[in-house]
C-alpha cells in the first residue's frame, strides 16, 4: 500500500501540472494514469498554445486567461514551446464585421495584433491562399503536449512524488462515506495496488464522470469530439487560423516536420471508443485547403480524435460552451477539475492546489508561474541535428531513430509499452506510422529481455489495430499505397493471424 497526501487521477496536462505545483509547495502526492502521459485530450489536441484570439470574440474571459498563460509558458517551458506566431486570415466572403469585432476585442483583452496586407502575409507564409483579403498576426505558438506533461512529472518524480503511468483506477476506497484511497490496476500484469490519501483529485477530463461515479458522485459534463488530421509536410511555419467565428477545420498548427489541422465538434459518447469518420477528414482537409491550398493534395499520414471535457451548459453546440474551467468539491474527499484547455493547464493546476492548500492549512504561495520547468536541460529532445549525428543502425527510417535511441528509451524508463518508446523518441511518427519500425523496436525489447516473444506479438497486433484506426479515415494516394505494403508484410509475409 502507498500512503500519500494527495491522489491525482489523470496524467494529462492538468494532472501533471497539479503534481508539479504540489511538489513546489511541498505536498506529497501520487499520480495515477491509465495509459501514458497525455493519452487523453491533452495529446489529442492541436498542440496550440493559444494567444486567446480564437475565443476573444465569444469568450473574452477564456481569452484573457490564454494570453496571460501564453506569456508564462513561453518563459517557463521553452523546450516545449515553439514561438511560431500565428495569424488569422480573412478569405473572400468572410465577414468584415467579425474582423472589426475581433480587432476590438483583442485590443480590450490585451492580445497584440498587426494587420497585414495579403502581400506581407504571403511573404511570411508563402503557402497561403493568394486570394486572402488580409491577415492579422497574434502571438500563437506551437506546443508539445507530451513533453509538457513529461517535464511537469519530472519535477514531481525528482521531488518525492509517485508517478504511476499504466495504472488504471478501478475503485475508490471509502470509509464512513469519505474517500480515503483508490485501487489501481497495472495494465500489463493486472496487479491491483492500493493507494491511500487525504484528498483525491479527479483530473481525468472526458473520463471525469466515470471516476466521480466510482465515488458515488456525479459531474455534469458535455462531451464534444474534435478530430484532426496530420499532413506529411510542414506547410506553414506559423499557426494559421480562419478569421471567422469558431467552426470546423479552421486552425492549422505546424509541429516539428508536420502540420496538424482541425478540428470538428460533434457530440461524443464513450471517450474510449470514439473514432474519426472519413467525412470529418474530408471536411477538415477541404477547409484547411482554403487557407493553405497544398493541404488539398498533400499526403495525410494519420487522423486522431479527442474528447473535450466541457462543462455542461444549455448551449446546443459544443463550440458555444465556455472553455473556462471549474473545480467541484464533492464534499466526500474528492475534487473534480473540469473544462479548461491545454493553454491554461498551469492556471488550472494553481487554482486546484490553492483549494488543496486551504484544506490542508498550507500557507505556501504558488511558484509555477515563475520557475522554469525542471529537467529541460536533460531533455535529449528530437532535434534533427541530434538525430543526424548517429546515422548508424537506423531503426525508424522516417524519423531517423537509431537502435541506440530505442535502447536508451527502453532502459531509462524500463517500459514494456511500445507507445512509451514512440512518445519519447518519435519512433513511428513518420509516413509509415510504425508499419516497419514497431516490429524492430519490439524485437529490440525482446533482445533486452523486457518482453517475451509471445507478449511482443500480442503487443504488435494491438499496435497494428490501433494504428489502422488512426490512418483508415484518410487512406488514399500515397498513404493508401504505403498501407497496402504494410498489409502485405503482416498478413502476407508474416501471415499474422487475427487475435481473438
Amino acid at each position, binding site marked *: 500500500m502507498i500512503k500519500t497526501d494527495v491522489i491525482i487521477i489523470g496524467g494529462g496536462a492538468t494532472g501533471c501540472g497539479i503534481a508539479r505545483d504540489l511538489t513546489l509547495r511541498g505536498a506529497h502526492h501520487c499520480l495515477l494514469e491509465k495509459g501514458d502521459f497525455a493519452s487523453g485530450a491533452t495529446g489529442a489536441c492541436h498542440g496550440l498554445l493559444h494567444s486567446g484570439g480564437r475565443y476573444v470574440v465569444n469568450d473574452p474571459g477564456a481569452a484573457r486567461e490564454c494570453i496571460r498563460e501564453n506569456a508564462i509558458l513561453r518563459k517557463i517551458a521553452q523546450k516545449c514551446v515553439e514561438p511560431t506566431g500565428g495569424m488569422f486570415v480573412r478569405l473572400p466572403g468572410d465577414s468584415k464585421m467579425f474582423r472589426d469585432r475581433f480587432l476590438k476585442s483583442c485590443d480590450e483583452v490585451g492580445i497584440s495584433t498587426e494587420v497585414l496586407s495579403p502581400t506581407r502575409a504571403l511573404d511570411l507564409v508563402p503557402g497561403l491562399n493568394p486570394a486572402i483579403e488580409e491577415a492579422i498576426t497574434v502571438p500563437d505558438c506551437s506546443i508539445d503536449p507530451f513533453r509538457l506533461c513529461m517535464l511537469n512529472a519530472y519535477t514531481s518524480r525528482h521531488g518525492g512524488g509517485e508517478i504511476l503511468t499504466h495504472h488504471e483506477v478501478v475503485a475508490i476506497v471509502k470509509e464512513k462515506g469519505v474517500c480515503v484511497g483508490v485501487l489501481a490496476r497495472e495494465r500489463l500484469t493486472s496487479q491491483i495496488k492500493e493507494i491511500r490519501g487525504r484528498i483525491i483529485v479527479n483530473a481525468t477530463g472526458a473520463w471525469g464522470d466515470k471516476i466521480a461515479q466510482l465515488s458515488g458522485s456525479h459531474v455534469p459534463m458535455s462531451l464534444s469530439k474534435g478530430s484532426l488530421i496530420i499532413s506529411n509536410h510542414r506547410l506553414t511555419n506559423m499557426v494559421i487560423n480562419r478569421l471567422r467565428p469558431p467552426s470546423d477545420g479552421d486552425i492549422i498548427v505546424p509541429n516539428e516536420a508536420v502540420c496538424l489541422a482541425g478540428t470538428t465538434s460533434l457530440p461524443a459518447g464513450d471517450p474510449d471508443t470514439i473514432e474519426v469518420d472519413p467525412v470529418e477528414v474530408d471536411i477538415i482537409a477541404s477547409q484547411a485547403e482554403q487557407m493553405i491550398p497544398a493541404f488539398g493534395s498533400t499526403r495525410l499520414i494519420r487522423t486522431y480524435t479527442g474528447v473535450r471535457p466541457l462543462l455542461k451548459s444549455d448551449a446546443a453546440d459544443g463550440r458555444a460552451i465556455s472553455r473556462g474551467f471549474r473545480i467541484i468539491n464533492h464534499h466526500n474527499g474528492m475534487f473534480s477539475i473540469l473544462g479548461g484547455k491545454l493553454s491554461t493547464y498551469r492556471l488550472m493546476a494553481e487554482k486546484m492546489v490553492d483549494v488543496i492548500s486551504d484544506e490542508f492549512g498550507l500557507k505556501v504561495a504558488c511558484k509555477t508561474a515563475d520557475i522554469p520547468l525542471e529537467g529541460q536541460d536533460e531533455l535529449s529532445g528530437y532535434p534533427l541535428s541530434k538525430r543526424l549525428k548517429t546515422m548508424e543502425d537506423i531503426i525508424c527510417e522516417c524519423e531517423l531513430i537509431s537502435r541506440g535511441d530505442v535502447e536508451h528509451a527502453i532502459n531509462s524508463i524500463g517500459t514494456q509499452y511500445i507507445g512509451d518508446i514512440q512518445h519519447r523518441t518519435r519512433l513511428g511518427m513518420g509516413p509509415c506510422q510504425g508499419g516497419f519500425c514497431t516490429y524492430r523496436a519490439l524485437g529490440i525489447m525482446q533482445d533486452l529481455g523486457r518482453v517475451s*516473444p509471445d507478449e511482443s506479438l500480442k503487443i504488435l497486433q494491438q499496435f497494428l489495430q490501433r494504428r489502422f484506426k488512426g490512418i483508415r479515415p484518410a487512406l488514399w494516394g500515397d498513404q493508401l499505397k504505403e498501407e497496402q505494403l504494410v498489409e502485405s508484410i503482416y498478413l*502476407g509475409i508474416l501471415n499474422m493471424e487475427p487475435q481473438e
Partner: protein
Amino acid sequence: MTPLTYDVVVIGGGMAGFTSALYLTGQGYKVAIISKGDPVCCLSTGCIDVLSSDKNPLDGIPGLSRDHPYHLVGKKGITDALNFFKRIMQDTPIPYSGTPRKNRTILTPIGTAKTTCLVPMTMAGSETESDTYIHVISFKGLKDFFPSYITSGRRNIRFSLYDAGTSSTIGIATLFEDKSFRREFISWIQNLELPHGKVAFPAVLGIRNPLKILTEISDQIGREIFEIPTLPPSIPGLRLFRTLKSSFIKSGGDNYWGKVIASVESQGDQIEAVTLKSPGRPSRVPGKAFILSTGSFVSGGLYATRNTVKETVFDLPVFVPGTRKDWFKEDFFQAGHAIETAGIKVDSSFRPVNTRFGNLFVSGSILSHAEIMKNHCGHGLAIATGFRAAKICEEFLS
C-alpha cells in the same frame, strides 16, 4: 527514335509483365518492357502463392468471387502457366520447387506457417512442424529479422547470432558472395556443435547464386538447411526480379528501365506507340500490341484520390467499390477490404471493357476483383494472367 515497331510492348516490369514478355520472346516475337522502376516482387518472399484456401490450390477456384480473373484462365491455364514459370526458372541460379497441384507451408519470421505453392529451392526444406528441431542462425543487429519472434509458440527451436558487422539484409547477402567470408562463417558454425535437426537462416545467403552457397554450407556442416523470408528489402524477391530481368535480356528483349510514360499515340481503335519522359528528346516506343501489367496501388498502376481510383497510364475506366467510406473494414486483420476489388475489368480476351483500344491487353494485380491479400494469390495470379494475356496477344498478332 527506335526505327522498328515492336510486336508487343509490355508496360510494367513485374511478375505479370515478365511472364508475358518471356513467353513472347520464346515464340520469336520482338518485345519491349517499359518499367518505371524495380517491381514490387522485390519486396516479396519470392514464393509463388497461388491460392491458399485448399490443399490443392486449384480446388479453391470455384469458391472465388464470380468476377475473379482466375475464372478467365481456368485450372488448365493456371497449371500451364505455373509449369511455364518453373521451366524458365529451371536453368537459372534460382530454380523452384513444388507443383501447381499442391500447396505447402513455409516457416515465417514470426514462427507462423504460411501457405504457398512454388518456393525457391533454398526454401524447399522449410519446416513448420514442431517435431523437428530447428536451429536458426541469424546476424547480430539485423533489423529486419529477429529470430526471437520465431520461438513464440514453438518449443523445438533455438537460435545463435553471428556478428557480420552489418545490419541490413542486402549488406549481409553481399558478404555471402565472398568466399573468404563464407569460410570464416562456416568454421564459426562448425564450432557451435549443433544438435541434430535442421538449420535455418534468414534469406540472406547471397544474391546471385544462393543455391550454390546453401549447398556449400550444408555440405560442410552436415545439416539440411533452409532459408526463412525476411521483411523487405527481401533478398529472395530481389533474386527473382534480377533473374527474370536477365532472362528477358538474354532472350533478346529490349528493356526501358526507369522510364515513365508521358503520352499515348493512338489511331482509331489501335494504340500505335507510347512516348517516354526523358531529359532530352522524348523517345517513342511503337508497338503492334500492348500489354498493361503495371500492378495495383503499391506498384502505382492504380492511384486513389480522395474520392475515386485512377489507372495511371491510359486512364482506363476503373472498377471502384463504392465511396471511400466503404473501402476499408474496421479491423486491420480482417482480410478482404473492398478496395482490393478495385481495378480494370476485362473481357474473356483480357481486353479492358468499355474502352476503344483493340490492341491492349491487361494482366496481373491491376485486374479488378483479384483480392490478392484476401486470397493469397499474388504471384500466381500474375503468372497465370500474364501467361494467358501473352497467348491471346500471340493469337492477335497472327
